[in-house]
């Protein structure tokens, strides 16, 4: 469904991604792990279009994604839940979800999608009329995921959904990710700092370090000692 071939991104002279190749098949949950500054968020930004690679190809359903402007990619079925949640603070919960649901697919199935979002995160239904900026961090994360789901995506990019949350809240968010996976029909690319949980839940994993893929494969192949090497260099 998604294929990156030798994608390189540089900020100024700084190399953030260096020839990254990655495949995601329909229905898979693929985890991307790696230390801070490994290029995980840049990888997501390259897919959703807010950074432009200087080399490489990105194909989504066989179509050349780099030929599409960033704002058009949501309409192709790619929903990006950015790091740090980034809900629209002055808009209400309901309006945030409506903005997410402004794609053609989202409009067509709005009632159904909203019902599914509210079933997954009942607190959002209670807080519909509240400004998103006044929600707690965990609730904002739920809203950010809900906003992405409202677009009826086929590919969900989840960037550090548990970052900055209390352990209990992080667990709740992770449960929601597992539930989404269990529902099926959705392809998920996940960046997560809780490496153990991420690898336990995924079909395949990629380890990114210094902008390169240093390791990839089924969770079993990503043995702890090799991971430790990638993270700690020992």
């Amino acid at each position: 469904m998604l294929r990156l071939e030798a994608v390189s991104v540089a900020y100024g002279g700084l190399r953030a991604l260096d020839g990254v190749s990655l495949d995601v098949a329909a229905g898979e949950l693929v985890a991307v792990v790696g230390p801070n500054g490994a290029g995980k968020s840049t990888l997501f930004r390259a897919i959703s279009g807010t950074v432009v690679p200087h080399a490489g190809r990105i194909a989504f359903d066989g179509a050349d994604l780099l030929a599409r402007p960033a704002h058009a990619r949501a309409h192709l079925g790619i929903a990006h839940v950015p790091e740090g949640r980034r809900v629209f603070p002055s808009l209400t919960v309901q309006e945030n979800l409506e903005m997410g649901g402004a794609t053609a697919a989202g409009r067509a199935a709005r009632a159904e999608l909203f019902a599914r979002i509210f079933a997954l995160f009942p607190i959002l239904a209670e807080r519909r009329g509240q400004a998103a900026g006044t929600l707690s961090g965990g609730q904002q994360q739920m809203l950010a995921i809900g906003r992405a789901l409202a677009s009826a995506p086929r590919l969900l990019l989840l960037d550090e959904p548990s970052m900055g949350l209390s352990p209990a809240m992080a667990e709740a968010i992770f449960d929601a990710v597992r539930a989404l996976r269990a529902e099926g029909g959705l392809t998920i690319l996940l960046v997560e700092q809780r490496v153990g949980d991420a690898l336990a839940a995924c079909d395949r994993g990629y380890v990114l370090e210094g902008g390169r893929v240093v390791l990839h494969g089924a969770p079993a192949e990503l043995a702890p000692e090799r991971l430790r090497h990638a993270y700690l260099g020992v």
Partner: protein
Amino acid sequence: MNAFVEQAVQALAAGLLAGCLYGLTCVGLALIFGIMRVINFAQGDFMMVGMYLATGLAAVLARLALPDAATPFVAALLVAPVLFTAGALLHRLLIARTTGLRGGTAAHQAQLVLTLGIALVLQNGALIVMGSAPVSIVSPLSSSAWEIPLRYDAFSTLFLNQGRTIGAVLAVLVALAVFWLIGRTELGKSLRAAADDPEAATYVGIDVARAHRIAFAAGTAIAGVAGGLMVLAYPVQPFVGTDFVIIMYAGVVLGGIGSVSGAFWGGMTIGLVQQLSTLVLPLQLQNAAVFAVFVLILLFRPQGFFGLNVERA
């Protein structure tokens, strides 16, 4: 005593009428500065262009079969599509180069210089084309008034200039239309989303460059319409914009940055203070009174009347 009450009522009415027009000009700037965070020094000059355009359109319309009384108002409203188009083009060709996903101080400095340049070009262009003599729309309504007897005695009367009153009512209607557009429609919500977080807005499929262009064009159009309504009461000359641009910024800040309806009340406050101050202060101190009150209000409410307490991400 009765004479003072009559004066006070008269000043209050004048303040309300001026406040409605100031309010509308502030709403225009609120879209550009309050929401899209573009520092626009040319906003007053867009208004000046609207004033000239409305006088010209009124002269053309006068030859058609429209009733005399209606021409200045139709002319003012017709300014909107012209300046919307001009604003959209200006944004696409120039302003957009200073905005985009990368905001911050560098963008603001570039906007400052750019819009100051646009202001100078508009002012001096108007000087070349229109000359320096003030012009206004001559309408039968601008010299006639509704006389409302004040009931507390037999002779005190409130005079409401008909041209100004209808202008103020239209200003309120246009402002209400803008509130509805921003608050209730999908387009308005997408503009607010793009202002809140341009990157996240891109992720939900909003074309942020287009959203900015629409907001800028709408702000320009509103400035033009406000100018068109203003020119019935306030003659236009090429540098009239500088009189107003400071009032606009004060109104937007007073109302609370980011709040479009707040900006209207900010402008209204300025109109009221300006007119009511003439009861106790010499006319020349009008604007001094405005800024004294401005400072006082911000001392007690730094975020303005309707400022968002929510931190913008």
